[in-house]
C-alpha cells in the first residue's frame, strides 16, 4: 500500500508540475493584458512537436530543452505581437474571440502539416526506468519532471521578484498608465511576459510527450483547459496561485483515479470540474488571492 500511495503521489506531483508550468504562463499573460489566452495550450503542442523533430534529428537532450525554451518564447512573442498588441484596449470579448481564433488556426495548421496521426515520443531508456528508495519506487521521468519544474519555477520567481524586468512586469500588470509614466516601454514588457509564459508552456510540452509517450496536434487542448482551471482555483492573475492550483489539480486528479474503484476513473474530468465548481462557490476569487486588487 505504501508503494502504491507513494507512486500515486509522485505521479500526481508530476502531472501537477505540468499543469503548473502551463498555468503560470496563462496567469502571467492574463495578469498583464487581462485576456484569457485560449491559444496558450497550443504552445504545449508546439513544444512537444519541436522536441520530437529534434529527437528525430538526433539533437542531444540538454540542447533540446534549451531549444524548446527558445522556440516557445518566440512563438509566444509572435502571438503577443500579432494578436494582443493591436487589441490592447479593445473590448475584452474581441480579445477572447481573437485568441480562440489563433488557437483554431494553430491546431488546424498543425493538423494539415502533421496529420492527425498520433506519434510516439520516447525519452531515452534511462529515463523510462524506475528508481527504488527503500521499499518504494518511482519513475525517473516523473522525478525529472518534478525536479526540472522546480528549477524553472525558481528561475521564474527570481526574474519576477528580483529583477528590474520583473518589477516592471508587475508594475505594468497593475497600472499600465503609471508604468508608462515611469518610462517603461510597456509593449516590450508585455512581450517579455508572453515570451516567458510561453517558454514554460513549451517546456511542459516536451515533458508531456515524455510522460505520456504519444503526441498529436490537438494535444494542447487538455493542458490548456486544465491550466485555466488551475488558475481559477489559485486566483487568476497570481503566479503563485496558478502554480499551487496546478499542483492541487494534478494531485487531486491522480488521487481520485487512484483511490476510488476502477469504474470511476472515466469520470476524472467531471471530478476536476466538480472541484472547480465547489471552490468557486466557496472562494470565488481563488484560494490564494488575499485581496482583490483595487484598480485605480
Amino acid at each position, binding site marked *: 500500500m505504501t508503494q502504491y500511495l507513494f507512486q500515486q503521489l509522485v505521479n500526481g506531483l508530476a502531472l501537477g508540475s505540468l499543469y503548473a508550468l502551463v498555468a503560470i504562463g496563462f496567469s502571467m499573460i492574463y495578469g498583464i493584458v487581462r485576456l484569457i489566452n485560449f491559444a496558450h495550450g497550443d504552445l504545449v503542442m508546439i513544444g512537444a512537436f519541436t522536441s520530437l523533430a529534434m529527437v528525430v534529428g538526433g539533437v542531444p537532450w540538454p540542447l533540446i530543452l534549451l531549444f524548446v525554451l527558445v522556440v516557445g518564447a518566440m512563438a509566444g512573442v509572435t502571438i503577443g505581437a500579432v494578436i494582443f498588441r493591436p487589441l490592447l484596449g479593445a473590448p475584452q470579448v474581441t480579445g477572447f474571440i481573437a485568441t480562440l481564433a489563433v488557437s483554431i488556426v494553430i491546431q488546424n495548421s498543425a493538423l494539415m502539416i502533421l496529420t492527425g496521426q498520433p506519434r510516439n515520443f520516447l525519452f531515452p531508456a534511462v529515463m523510462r526506468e524506475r528508481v527504488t528508495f527503500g521499499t518504494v519506487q518511482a519513475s525517473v521521468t516523473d522525478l525529472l519532471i518534478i525536479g526540472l519544474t522546480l528549477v524553472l519555477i525558481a528561475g521564474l520567481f527570481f526574474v519576477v521578484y528580483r529583477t528590474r524586468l520583473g518589477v516592471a512586469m508587475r*508594475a505594468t500588470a497593475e497600472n499600465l498608465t*503609471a508604468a508608462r509614466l515611469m518610462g517603461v516601454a510597456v509593449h516590450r514588457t508585455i512581450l517579455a511576459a508572453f515570451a516567458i509564459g510561453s517558454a514554460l508552456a513549451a517546456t511542459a510540452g516536451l515533458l508531456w510527450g515524455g510522460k505520456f509517450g504519444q503526441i498529436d496536434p490537438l494535444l494542447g487542448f487538455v493542458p490548456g483547459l486544465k491550466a485555466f482551471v488551475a488558475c481559477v482555483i489559485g486566483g487568476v492573475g497570481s503566479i503563485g496561485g496558478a502554480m499551487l492550483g496546478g499542483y492541487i489539480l494534478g494531485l487531486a486528479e491522480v488521487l481520485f483515479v487512484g483511490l476510488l474503484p476502477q469504474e470511476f476513473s472515466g469520470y476524472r474530468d467531471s471530478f476536476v470540474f466538480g472541484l472547480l465548481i465547489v471552490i468557486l462557490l466557496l472562494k470565488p476569487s481563488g484560494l490564494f488571492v488575499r485581496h482583490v486588487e*483595487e484598480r485605480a
Partner: protein
Amino acid sequence: MLEVEGLNVWRGATHVLKDVSFTVAAGELAALIGANGAGKSTTLLTLSGLLRARSGSARFGTLDLTHAKPERIVKAGLIHCPEGRQIFQSLTVAENLAMGAYVRGGRIAPETMAEIHTLFPILKEREGVAAGTLSGGEQMMLAMARALIASPKLLLLDEPSLGLAPKAVETIFDVIEALKKRGIPILLIEQNAAMALDIADRAYVMEQGRIALSGTGRELAGNDRVRQFYLGAT
C-alpha cells in the same frame, strides 16, 4: 525650457485642448489652475506622450514632445507625477521607488536615497510593505518621492494635495517649495489655487480647454476674475 504652442488635443469626439500655448522657464515654478474638466490633466498627459496632439507643438529643450515616445520623454527628464497618485499598490514601497529609477537601470544612488528619506522619513520605515497599505498622505509622499528619484529636469505635478488632510497638504507644499529652492522647474496643477498662486513665479488659468489668463502668481492672485472664481472671494 518647456514651450507649448497652439496645442489642440481631442479625446474621443471631444475637442479638449484648444490652441493652448504657455511656457515654463528654467528654474521656474509655474501653476496651472482651472475648474474641473478644464483640460489640465489632458495637458500634462499630452506633454508626457500618453495623449497625442492633432496640431500644435510642445518642445522640452530640443525634444519634440508631440512625437517622442513616453519612455524617451522620461529619459529626457520630464517627469510626471499623475493625478490620483497612481502608485503601484501591490508593489512594496522600495519597489515603487525603484520604478522611479527605472530608466536609469532601477538603481538608486545611496545619496539620492538618503535625501529622499530626509524629505519623507516615513518611507524609510515602510520600505518593505505593500504600498497599497499606506495612508492617502503617505501614498502621495511615495508618489512624489518616486518622481524625484527619476531626477526631474522638469516636474509635472497633477493636484498633489487632492483629498489630503491639511497637515499633509502643508507637508506637500513644503516639499514643493524645497524643490523650487533647489531650482527644479515645476509645472503645478492645483485645485487649491490660493496656495498655488502664493508660491508660483508664473501662473496660467485654463477655462474650457483654453488658456484664459496668464501672469505672475501675484498678478493673478490680485486679478478680480481669479479672486471671484478661483479664490472664493466675494
